[in-house]
């Protein structure tokens, strides 16, 4: 088997301790959470951190709870917990949709939402989910805490707005009435990254859309926020024609690259189809008539 290069290691006991260690060891240090993005890269020697800061003991970062109109998910929450959370199932079923098709059960026991978002793989599903839900993430560092909206979070492939000396601590989602959400993914085989994925979140009031979010995964150099497609729904009543129109707009927003998973035209086509399907299911859920 391929093996990592030599490195040093410490286990953080507090969040601030982890931040201090990051500051001390500089750019060659990496936070180690679930490890299921970092360790594979280390084995292939695509990543050669010299210092690992293990934050798996930071239980204070593992939670899913509601505080008023906010649902807060700690960065160390594992995929398996997101999948089985009743709170999330009630408010944001898109999480369970996505988790069912993220990697496999053993990987889901270890991988975390913080790790997935910070890895920022353009094909990563939770990034599309959080983009559609218009989530914000809390980030903490030597300069204190700040909130970053998902629309500003992804900067490029494997690059986020989290600075090298900061740690993502939680994801925040606003609970608003009339919500429905869904995730659609096409993959070559179970457990694979998406050929293309679409997350849709809608909020319906009085029979028309008051807000919507569409996030596309594996659709470009970073998660695509299909803003025009989402805004197209504003003030309108749901209909198949509307979903199709939004799908077309989402396809236009996509910037897929050709690779072993497929060529550009097929991926664009999927952007259209999956956006349509995700909107359809999200809407049905919002109207509480699951298709």
């Amino acid at each position, binding site marked *: *088997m*391929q*093996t990592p*290069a*030599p490195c040093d290691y410490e286990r953080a006991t507090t969040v601030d301790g982890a931040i201090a260690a990051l500051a001390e060891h500089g750019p060659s240090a990496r936070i180690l959470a679930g490890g299921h993005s970092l360790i594979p890269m280390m084995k292939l*020697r695509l990543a050669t951190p010299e210092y690992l800061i293990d934050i798996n003991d930071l239980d204070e970062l593992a939670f899913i709870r509601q505080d008023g109109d906010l649902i807060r998910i700690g960065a160390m929450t594992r995929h398996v917990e997101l999948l089985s959370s009743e709170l999330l199932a009630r408010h944001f079923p898109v999480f369970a949709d996505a988790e069912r098709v993220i990697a*496999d059960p053993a990987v889901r026991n270890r991988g975390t939402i913080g790790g997935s978002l910070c890895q920022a793989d353009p094909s990563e599903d939770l990034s599309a989910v959080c983009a559609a839900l218009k989530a914000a993430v809390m980030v903490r560092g030597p300069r204190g805490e700040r909130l970053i909206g998902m629309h500003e979070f992804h900067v490029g492939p494997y690059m986020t707005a989290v600075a090298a000396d900061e740690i993502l601590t939680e994801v925040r989602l606003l609970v608003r009435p009339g919500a429905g959400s869904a995730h659609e993914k*096409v993959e*070559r*085989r*179970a*457990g*694979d990254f998406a*050929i293309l994925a679409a997350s849709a979140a809608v909020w319906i009031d009085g029979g028309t859309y008051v807000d919507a979010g569409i996030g596309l995964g594996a659709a470009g150099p970073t998660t695509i926020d299909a803003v025009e497609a989402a805004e197209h729904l504003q003030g309108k009543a749901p209909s198949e024609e509307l979903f199709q129109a939004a799908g077309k707009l989402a396809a236009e927003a996509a910037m897929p690259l050709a690779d*072993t*998973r*497929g*060529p550009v035209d*097929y991926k664009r*086509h*999927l952007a259209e*189809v*999956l956006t349509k399907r995700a909107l359809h299911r999200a809407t049905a859920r919002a109207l509480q008539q699951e298709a």
Partner: protein
Amino acid sequence: MATTTENLPSATQERPIGFGRLKRKEDARFIRGKGNYLDDLRLPGMLHGAILRSPFAHARIKSIDTSRALALPGVLGVVTAKDLETLGLAWMPTISYDTQAVLAGDKVRFQHQEVAFVIATDEYIARDALPLIVVDYEPLPAVVNARKALDPDAPLIRDDKPEQTDNLATPTWEAGDEEATDRVFAQADTVITQDIIYPRCHPAPMETCGMVADFNAETGQLTLYNGNQAPHAHRTVYAHVAGLAEHMIRIIVADIGGGFGNKVPIYPGYVCAIAGSIVTGKPVKWIEDRSENLMSTGFARDYIMHASICAKDGKITGLKVDALADHGAFDSTAQPTKFPAGFFHICCGSYDLQASHVKVKAIYSNKAPGGVAYRCSFRVTEAVYLVERMTEALAVEMGVDPIELRMRSFIGPDQFPYETTTGWTYDSGNYAKTMKVAMEIAGYEELRSEQAEKRARGELMGIGISFFTEGVGAGPRKHMDILGLAMNDGADLRVHPSGQAVVSISAQTQGQGHETTFAQIVSEELGIPPEDVQVRHGDTDKSPYGLGTYGSRSTPVSGGAVAVVTRKVRDKARRIAATMLETRPEDLGWEKGRWFVKGDPEKGALIEDIARYAYSGAPMPEGMEGGLDAQVMYDPPNLTYPYGAYIAVVDIDPETAEVKVRRFIAVDDCGVRINPMIVDGQIHGGLAEGVGIALMEVLTFDESGNCLNGSFMDYLIPTALECPDFELGETVTPCPHHPLGAKGIGESSNVGSPPAIVNAVIDALRQKDPSLRHIDMPCTPDRVWAAMQGRPEPPQ
């Protein structure tokens, strides 16, 4: 002493004495995690090897600087081609009479080719040393497209061979009758022509390849621990290559985590480990990682075929095929010497053709060497895929149900033994019967009705048929040798004084259950319970010579050997019993485990009594030595020809083009089944491989020769979610020439399933676009979608 039937252990369903669903003896260690796979081996003082591999598909090596690697603490040595040259090991012979570089000296000829071998105190350090080796490459243009390999301006790959002026690996080999075939085509009612590719894929067993080499300088004994499907043949080759005495080489094969043909060739890593051990005087372990396995070990298939098929009066009458085989940078395909294209000419199929003609030539390319692997039965996978795709396309062209066309065209049961138009003699078969069983299990009529209803709603459901006859169990010494070694298998049976026995076989299990099934053969023929028979294998010092386990040889050849040797022992036992019972051998009758006096059945002798007698001082029959054992070298009179009828049902999402295999019905006829449970298991495994090959497995390359599927992230193997719950049926048509009436089975399901699935995919797509004739594998969503847009593209 006389013994009665009450002493005989009684057979039950659970514990048959002989054939039946016996649970496996070898499970005991595997379910406890006590298997002995290569990487489990730890020897005192053992060192670890790691291989530096070329990033380029084709490049000159200008220099190699190993100094920084040598300076790393824990590194004992770095071997390059120059060092191997002094040992005469820089190049090695391949199984197909070519040569292959052990470590690249002048240039590299495929991406991931071996360039240097590091020996260190542990595996992590050995791998740390790899990036410290500096190689100066001068990249050259690469030959990646097989069709362009013979272009006049194509770069010459094998400039190491003085006579080589182009990239032809093996010249055109032909079978059948070209003139007769042309006449049949001229008279046909319907002719279709199609280009069909069987893409490059990989057997990818779960355990990668490796070796621990242990050379004892004092005694001159070389002991090799190796996952190896053909240990005796390897031993002979090593003796030749390394200039060592063959009797001083011992290959020990413990447990193998899957072979599927991947563990048949000799790999450079093995030779490096041997050289490493000779030079250091310590055991050296080399075990490859998964990317090395996928990118440098023996791949499978890669056949580009141009075929025509024709029909007259509603029956298939002729087939012609022109095939181009991509063998990679070195020719290391494994097949009997007289058949450089393996058994591809069995593409005449299961039909009573009037004529057929087959041409195959092979080229070199800047890709890893190989071609014959992955349950292919020596290219039968390519052959069956070809004929079953063509047959289905012909049925469409003729407007005939694909099963109906086959039923009309089948070789009839009364025509066996059947001489095919390409020189095969099929042993036995009743094809229509097997096809009908498949139709019944599938509910074929209901499936077609369902399909029609779905078509009306715009849903894409497909039904695909495949009927195959394959030839396995090479083979008769007159016709079949590999590197001049006849494809015969020895077997050795010793019954101990207690009546318990050890049977030594040459076949090498990689999961097929030999420790159980071969005990069952002895049990069936000698009537002692299978738990009283120990199967010994996996040690060339302790087992008889044989050509190994691949090409479904185990049952046809080693199984035949064990049956014959057991009968020899039984015959010997008869004559001893006659002496014991004071009668003549011809007066004795046999019931499992016991010879008895025909005229007085209460009087008899159990095998265990006969054994005890044979070792005692009591008088033996005239001219017979003591003991109860025998030895044979079995020469099969022919291959065996298992066959099967397969039906696949798929659903395709009309928008996303995702393909789901909903059902797969497989009815196999492999003659007499020694252990039906194990037979079913073999079939299940090959069907899953067929799902993989048809839908997702492929090794592709870019124009520079970079391999794009070099890990399990991109070389996709089906999980439990992609495989349906396979539905199996059986018919039993015994093999007339095999001692047990059995035929091989290990590869049948990989042979028969890809065409069934691809036929089903095309059938589904044709529900919307009746003009679609063909789509090449793998039927990934993007490729299926392209076909739906009217532009099916070949892979790469």
